[in-house]
């Protein structure tokens, strides 16, 4: 029923999120799917209740629908930010155009996902916002297994062997390593590595990934970069 891949289960017992969504059917589906993914999920069906829960509890991530009864999603976000509540917020919206996303992010949202979305996309983004895995922002060297990426020297080594990457391949690997152990979707890569927020017709990302994969995996016995079916990619040392 839940359309994210069974090959991957995020297993993060301590993550707690709030979903503010007025469509009860969609909300029930989200709560069930997040729970199955091991994420404790609270749900609010209107803006007032959502704002109350957001101020009273400590969530890791909030998923807020943009159009809500009683109080709209963007005003909740900007009010939370005024109160210095910095919980990462993902805004869901039926409006998905470039300018709408800009207004959503300006209001204080951390990510913006247009409807209709796939749950695997939403889950991947919530996980990344929750920042329970992967590297920290101020790490200068990212390490996954025997793979090492030096952010200052712009150098990549695997098992002590230097790997030459194009600048964009470097950024791609950097993003994947930063979120190692988490699923990263194609749109997330396009947004964060190329800064494009549209969906190219052909799957350009797949080609870049396979090129990167051949560079970091050819000649080594262990695979690091795996494809998560129906969702995206994940960089992980073993298992």
């Amino acid at each position, binding site marked *: 029923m839940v*359309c994210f891949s069974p090959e991957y289960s995020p297993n993060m017992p301590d993550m707690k999120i709030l979903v503010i969504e007025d469509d009860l059917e969609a909300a029930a589906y989200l709560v069930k799917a997040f729970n199955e993914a091991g994420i404790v999920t609270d749900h609010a069906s209107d803006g007032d209740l959502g704002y109350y829960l957001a101020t009273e509890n400590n969530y890791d991530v909030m998923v807020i629908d943009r159009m809500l009864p009683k109080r709209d999603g963007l005003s909740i976000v900007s009010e939370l930010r005024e109160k210095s509540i910095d919980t990462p917020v993902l805004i869901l919206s039926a409006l*998905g*155009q*470039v*300018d709408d996303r*800009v207004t959503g992010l300006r209001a204080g949202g951390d990510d913006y996902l*247009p409807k*209709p979305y*796939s749950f695997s996309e939403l889950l991947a983004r919530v996980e990344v916002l929750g920042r329970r895995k992967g590297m920290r922002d101020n790490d200068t060297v990212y390490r996954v297994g025997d793979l090492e990426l030096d952010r200052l020297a712009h150098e990549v080594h695997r098992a002590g062997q230097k790997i030459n990457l*194009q600048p*964009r391949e470097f950024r791609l690997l950097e993003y994947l390593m930063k979120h190692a152990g988490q699923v990263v979707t194609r749109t997330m890569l396009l947004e964060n590595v*190329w800064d*494009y*927020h*549209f*969906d*190219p*017709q*052909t799957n*350009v990302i797949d*080609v*870049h990934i396979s*090129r990167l994969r051949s560079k970091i995996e050819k000649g080594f016995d262990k695979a690091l970069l795996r494809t998560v079916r*129906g969702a995206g990619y994940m960089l992980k040392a073993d298992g």
Partner: protein
Amino acid sequence: MSRFSALLRTTAVRMSALYLGLFAICAVALVFYVTDLTSNLLTLQTKQVVQDELKVLGNFYRRGGVSLLIGHIDRRSREPGANLYTIAAPNGEILAGNVQSLQPGVLDIEGWTDRPFSYRRFYQPEGTPGHAALAEVIFLPNGMRVLVGRDLGEPTKFRSMVQRSLAMALGIMVFGALVIWFFIGRGALQRIDRVSQASQKIMAGDLSQRLPVSGSRDEFDRLSEALNAMLSRIEKLNEGLRQVSDNIAHDLKTPLTRLRNRAEAALAGKPDPDTYRSAMEEMIEESDQLIRTFNALLMISRVEAGAAVAELKPVDLTQIAHDAEELYEPVAEEAGVRLKTRIEDGVTVTGNRELIGQALTNLIDNAIKYCIDGKGPPEIELRLGREDGAVVLSVLDNGPGIPEDMRDDVVKRFVRLDESRTKPGTGLGLSLVEAIMGLHGGRLELVNCDESEQCGLCARMVFDRRS
């Protein structure tokens, strides 16, 4: 009745009522002034006549005393159109003249009567009102009184005549104004009624209706023509919208039907988890394609509505071109297509990076998709340069190209040439590029590559100097 009140509310009627009122006031004032002046003049004339007459009478009196005076007065009294003459004894008894009786007290004061007095003539029938007259009274040394006056009948008649004609003129004016109001106002109302009838039909949905134009080139015509031009534009837009909704109906319903069929087929087949799984995966794939189509449609309408105009700022076109090259180079390589570039440095335009990037990737996508069908080894070229002040970002391919007569069609929404139906895509790519170029004040040109090169399509995004 309501028609009449509607008539009264028309501007023409209101303005003419105002003018009529002002004119009437002026006319009345003028007539009063004229009659007053005339009657003063007549009075003056009367006095002159009376004084002349008194001079003559004075001569008679000096020459022959009272008897000659009475004789003369008697004679003068009988002449037709004579003045009024009275000679009275000191006790007021009338001795001679053509007056039967006078208003009492007239003979008691010497000099001009300060106001008209009434008198009766001889042979005047009983019960009729007296005549009015002005007169001068002279006291003779023996105490007898002589009155010479003039009937005021003529000036009064004149005045009443003037007043009557004034009233008549005003009456005619009011009547004329009413008639003119009626025709002018009704004419205007009828035209407005025709216009509102036409607009009601238009509101009811018949956009082919036009407002009536009489051909007189007056203000109504000019207004109607402007509104008709607007209607034509709306009709055209509406036609476009209708076409799009037809296309949506077709291009969204077809995949929806496929989706439904898949689900039905899976349900009807044997209840096997693997079959279900693969059916569902196919369905998700299908719905993703639907969502893509839908997003592209929304994007086009948003861009066409100019909603993103606020976000236009100077962008580095050179950088966009290099980004696209870098993004597509592995894709081209994997597809066995050679990607060449000729990108000029430091080219900037005012625009939206995201939208231009999307337009360019659409063109590259197309080029990679179609150049494979060409004769030679597949090859595309990305070019950025300046031409006559305009900036041109173009994607050339050596595929089969687009026949000249089809080029206008391919930018229409959902139009896909028959040969391309088998390739993936929404049929919206070029429409989006065109909409994006429109937003940037530029255009999309589809031309054939030069003869010297392998013939194919050259899609040019032309940014005019001002953009």
